[in-house]
């Protein structure tokens, strides 16, 4: 890894060179009173002064709906058109928070847990991540409790830490990052030896993952799930804004003799998610579905995939219509 300095005008020049290279650039944009990742052409479109985008960048590597393959029946024969990884354009994600970048690892772990997921992997391969370390946080943020930090480099190809002069410390983490630097190499100057940590928000850890894990391992039959989930109204807001939630549904879109098989977002909080054809539902009640959500993130994923299914971005807590606050709930389990 190499550390460089980039000035304010250097950032502008570099950004332009990335757009000019033909890659799609997505960045947080302020629109309809929300900050969302959108395709941008100019640096001036990028939002400033906010803590978090409403939605994560998950959709860039796990689209809300994606065609697995399409088919056409003709004279008793079926012509299949498989997903083509080359159809995915080169994409740069600009101004990603470290908690979003850290979400790539758990997402990829889920999609590749048994056999490689061609679609997800194609997106990841074509995506470069330029993260910005965090100078701001709010009461929903808790990355430091889940192996992250405001300056965490996991999942980033380059990380910028903004400096008071409008320039930035640029940490070039991966070969993909080096390739982005190569688009405008002269703007990357020698490191000025600035201490990055001076510019990061101070966010003390709120719980210990080990303690939570130990408690959760014995909590399957606990009454805590019912107590915590009584007010949960069973929507999918938490799952859909989450950078690591990967539940999906497979759907058939058939029109006469042609069709498409589609993978689309689903949520373990929905009753329909686990409903069997027989009518039996192993997770009949919301409390069971809430238990699944927390255990999957904080117990099953660490045990089976060696990665925590939560990056502490706090989006679920901000999006929840009834204040199901994951930090509060996990902390209360840790303290039990």
């Amino acid at each position: 890894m190499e550390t460089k300095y980039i000035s304010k005008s250097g950032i502008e020049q570099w950004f332009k060179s990335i757009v000019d290279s033909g890659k799609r650039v997505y960045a947080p944009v302020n629109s309809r009173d929300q900050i969302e990742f959108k395709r941008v052409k100019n640096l001036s479109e990028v939002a400033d002064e906010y803590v978090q985008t409403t939605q994560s960048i998950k959709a860039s590597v796990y689209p809300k709906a994606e065609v697995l393959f399409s088919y056409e029946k003709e004279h008793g024969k079926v012509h299949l058109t498989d997903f083509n990884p080359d159809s995915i354009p080169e994409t740069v994600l600009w101004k990603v928070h470290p908690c979003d970048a850290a979400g790539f690892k758990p997402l990829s772990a889920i999609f590749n847990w048994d056999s490689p997921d061609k679609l997800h992997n194609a997106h990841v391969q074509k995506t470069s991540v330029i993260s910005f370390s965090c100078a701001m946080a709010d009461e929903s943020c808790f990355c430091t409790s889940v192996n992250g930090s405001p300056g965490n480099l996991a999942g980033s190809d380059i990380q910028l830490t903004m400096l008071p002069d409008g320039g930035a410390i640029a940490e070039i983490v991966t070969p993909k990052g080096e390739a982005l630097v190569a688009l405008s190499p002269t703007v990357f100057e020698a490191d000025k030896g600035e201490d990055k940590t001076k510019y990061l928000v101070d966010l003390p850890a709120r719980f210990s993952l080990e303690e939570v894990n130990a408690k959760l391992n014995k909590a399957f039959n606990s009454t805590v799930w019912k107590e915590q989930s009584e007010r949960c109204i069973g929507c999918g807001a938490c799952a859909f804004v989450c950078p690591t939630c990967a539940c999906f549904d497979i759907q058939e879109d058939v029109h006469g003799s042609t069709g498409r098989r589609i993978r689309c977002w689903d949520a373990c909080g929905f009753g329909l998610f686990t409903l069997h054809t027989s009518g039996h539902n192993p997770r009949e009640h919301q409390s069971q579905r809430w238990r699944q959500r927390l255990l999957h993130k904080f117990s099953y994923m660490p045990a089976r995939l060696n990665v925590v299914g939560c990056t502490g971005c706090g989006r679920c807590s901000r999006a929840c219509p009834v204040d199901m606050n994951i930090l509060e709930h996990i902390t209360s389990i840790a303290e039990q």
Partner: protein
Amino acid sequence: MEKLRERAAAILADGTVSLVIGYEEGTKRPRPLFCHDGESARKLIFDSRCFHNLAVYLTKKELVGNGRFAVTATISTLRSIMQLYVENQLSEDKLLILTVDLSGTLREFVTFDEISAYVEQFELKRSEREQAILTRIEGMTREERWNFWQEEMSHCFKCYACRSACPLCYCTKCVVEVNRPQWINPWPAPVANMEWHINRAMHMVGRCTACGACGDACPVGIPIDLITRKMMEDMAPEFGYIPGLPVKKGNALSTWKLDDREQFIR
């Protein structure tokens, strides 16, 4: 507020009810609270910041069980409860309603008529936000309105928070949960999003009491509540209803009478 807590604790202690659904302080603003004992009733609050429509929980059997239960109700919640009574989804012998009136006095209601007499004092007015957006929409041409809603709906990712927060969306199997046949494509896409929202709106006509819970719940900020609100406003004068005030004689679009002369059909 102290009286409310005392009363809630008392009715839980003497077995009048087995559950009181109310509000407690949340992490940012008040949130729903389920009290099963006097201890938890001490957390109850009730003030102008309490905005959730708690009527959404009253039709969930897994939460309220088969016994008698109580709810602390805002005016919006009361309107929804009346509508649920009209639709035979609640029974007066199962529900005790607690509220605090403007003078700070604890009030209790059981019957539709008691609630009705109280709620009638409050006119359903557009809030500043509702007024601002609706005035804008009302000033649009048909094409502009269609484009406005198409743009708004394009942000929908089908988390169904609007449905989940709505007290009147109590169907045990919502149209989007019926998958044999699959009426509406479940993935978010322009047409499939419109299909969902038009379905939702049509199911709400003549029933929506304009509590705004769907709009409050939407995580992507779609002013979804204004569609059903505007429909309610538009149809109320046509059917002689008072906006937001359900009537015992039934919903405008789901009642059928032999003696209806249906003169509008030619």
